[in-house]
């Protein structure tokens, strides 16, 4: 294996490759986000005996683009009593963490470029998992800020709900991952993928089924998807934190929600399903796993009612947190003995 490409051995090549990787990942994520909205509308439509979009382009395939354009050209309204700076900042605060989390997710093995080894991953942080949790935590600031800055009581309730929800679920999600890196003995996502590389039986979903279930459920709560979509609960809070948003700012919230879904799916696939491992070339495996999780999320949205705020809290603190702790204890016992 040739030497690893780094900033010291070939700065120009390194920057070029880096930019190429970032651009590729960004475009793929944006495309998935755009077509996730399309897929969601189609799938839920079919499940509800409807058709979903059909008019824009063949099979309605241009619908996400039409939606984007429409939102782009809409008037941008900032309520007179809103806190302007925070109001403008909030959508960015929620979108950016959603996108940058994907940086630590490996989407393949190593390739050789110009005589150097290049890992198919934007950044192999040795604290990759902590970085993911940190970014997920950062995203909630956007929601809280949006709720507060809108100067709307419904939005405020949405923001408060989301803050409480995020704290309770962040904990359980974090704790459920601990058992994973207890097994892999590394915090780097690349390391975790390599630890699962020995074939399908090495995937942590089989050795850590409880952690997997906990992580998927808490992730649903973290990305505000049904049945945990309390911060936006349109029938209660009239869209909650994004009530007052319009135009491109609303589109940013919308994109962030789907980007979060993509990221959470990618992270789950990496932690529990061996990431890019599988029968096809690297990135395709990862994409298939992402699509699978996205489909499940959409499916769940079509089927389940929404839980109540106090029930959500109850579940977070009294069920998921103890279960996650228990899982750590069991894993610890197994690892030690």
């Amino acid at each position: 294996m040739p030497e690893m490409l780094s900033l010291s051995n070939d700065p120009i090549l390194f920057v070029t490759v880096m930019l190429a990787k970032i651009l590729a990942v960004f475009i793929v994520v944006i495309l998935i986000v755009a077509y996730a909205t399309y897929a969601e509308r189609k799938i839920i439509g079919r499940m509800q005996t409807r058709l979903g979009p059909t008019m824009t382009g063949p099979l309605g395939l241009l619908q996400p683009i039409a939606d984007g354009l429409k939102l782009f050209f809409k008037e941008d309204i900032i309520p007179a009593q809103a806190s302007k700076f925070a109001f403008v900042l909030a959508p960015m605060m929620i979108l950016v963490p959603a996108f940058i989390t994907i940086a630590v997710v490996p989407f393949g093995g190593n390739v050789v470029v110009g005589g150097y080894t290049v890992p198919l991953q934007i950044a192999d942080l040795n604290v990759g998992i902590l970085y993911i949790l940190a970014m997920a935590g950062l995203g909630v600031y956007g929601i809280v800020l949006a709720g507060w800055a809108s100067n709307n009581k419904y939005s405020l309730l949405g923001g408060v709900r989301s803050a409480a929800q995020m704290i309770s679920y962040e904990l359980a999600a974090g704790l459920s991952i601990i058992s994973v890196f207890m097994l892999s003995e590394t915090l780097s996502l690349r390391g975790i993928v390599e630890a699962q590389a020995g074939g399908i039986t090495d995937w942590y979903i089989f050795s850590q089924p409880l952690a997997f279930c906990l992580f998927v459920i808490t992730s649903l709560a973290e990305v505000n998807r049904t049945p945990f979509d309390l911060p936006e609960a349109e029938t209660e809070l009239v869209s909650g934190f994004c009530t007052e948003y319009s135009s491109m700012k609303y589109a940013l919230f919308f994109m962030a929600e789907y980007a979060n879904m993509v990221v959470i799916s990618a992270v789950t696939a990496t932690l529990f399903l061996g990431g890019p491992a599988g029968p096809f070339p690297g990135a395709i495996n990862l994409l298939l796993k992402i699509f699978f999780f996205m489909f499940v999320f959409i499916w769940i949205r079509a089927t389940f009612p929404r839980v109540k705020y106090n029930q959500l809290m109850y579940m977070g603190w009294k069920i998921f947190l103890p279960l996650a702790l228990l899982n750590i204890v069991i894993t610890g016992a197994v690892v030690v003995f």
Partner: protein
Amino acid sequence: MAKKDIMTINMGPQHPSTHGVLQLILELDGETVVKATPHIGFLHRGVEKLSENRSYHRALPLTDRLDYLAPMSNNLGYVLAVEKLLGITDLIPERAKVVRVMMAELTRIKSHLVWLATHALDIGAMTVFLYCFREREAIMDMYEKLSGARMTSNYFRVGGLSLDLPEGFEKDVRSFIDAMPGHIETYEGLLTGNKIWQKRTIGVAKIDADAAIDIGLTGPALRASGVDWDLRRDNPYSGYEEYEFQVVTRQNGDTFDRYKARLDEMRESCKIIRQALDKLQPGPILADAPAVCLPPKEKVVNSIEGLIHQFKIITEGFKPEPGEIYQGVEAPKGELGYYLVSDGSANPYRMKIRPPSFVNLQALPQMVEGALLADVIAAIGTLDIVLGEIDR
């Protein structure tokens, strides 16, 4: 904190789950409701006053627009009341009575379907919404075939029916009620056993039997609290005494029980419709009361007597003896009552409507006190209110 900070929030009249233009002033402590004050009247059209200025016949289309989700039940209550006022209740032909019962029960299913759809959507289960509307659409198609309109049917007439059943109608109804229990199973499959649905509904917006009676709740909301009271059985009209059906009662009086009660009521309605279909015999559809009923069309076109008859009824109307009556029917939402006062003229002197939703809504503040914001949504949904009826 020494002083509790209460946040007042205006829920409605523009809010997705206040079922129209209900406004609730909610006083919230965090997410807990301290007090809820319903404000109504945004959809007031003055139906009662309007009907004082038009003949009995011309007031009928107004009743379509009370509870617009169950127009035939409103029509039924009104025509029964006018017939009682005229004293022609016994003259109504059997066929008209049976069709009235059949359509009233189809209307009950239709109304309950919208209730389930919106209630489930409010709680977040959006797929049930579209499944229910699919079945409701089938009923609307039948409405259209029968009366010519999908919502404001205006089909019953004082003395009978406006038109006879169209060809193939009975077959449509039969195939619908054959399929309906299966559809109800589907809704139940999505909701009843679902832990989240149970958590959202069991014990929520509870009201016990005594409180329910004190407020004057009627319909499924009353029966779910354990009070066995159904006008169809206890004060029968339009020949309901000839049908066999169960009055569905439940004990707990919470949202889940009201949900189950209405679903079971839909099943019972299917049974009543089946019996009505079996009873259906060819025969006249209008009472033999020439002072009240329009003559058949061919008579009007072909004979001078018929023509004069038609002119007389339409220009003069019919004039009940002075007096007053009350007629209640078991509408899908509860007891719908018409109180009519006649001064001997062709127009009602006074028409007072007792809308079930209006009375049922009074239970809301008491139901949601101390509950969470999300329970308010469930409570509004479970009461099954229609603002067209509340504001009149």
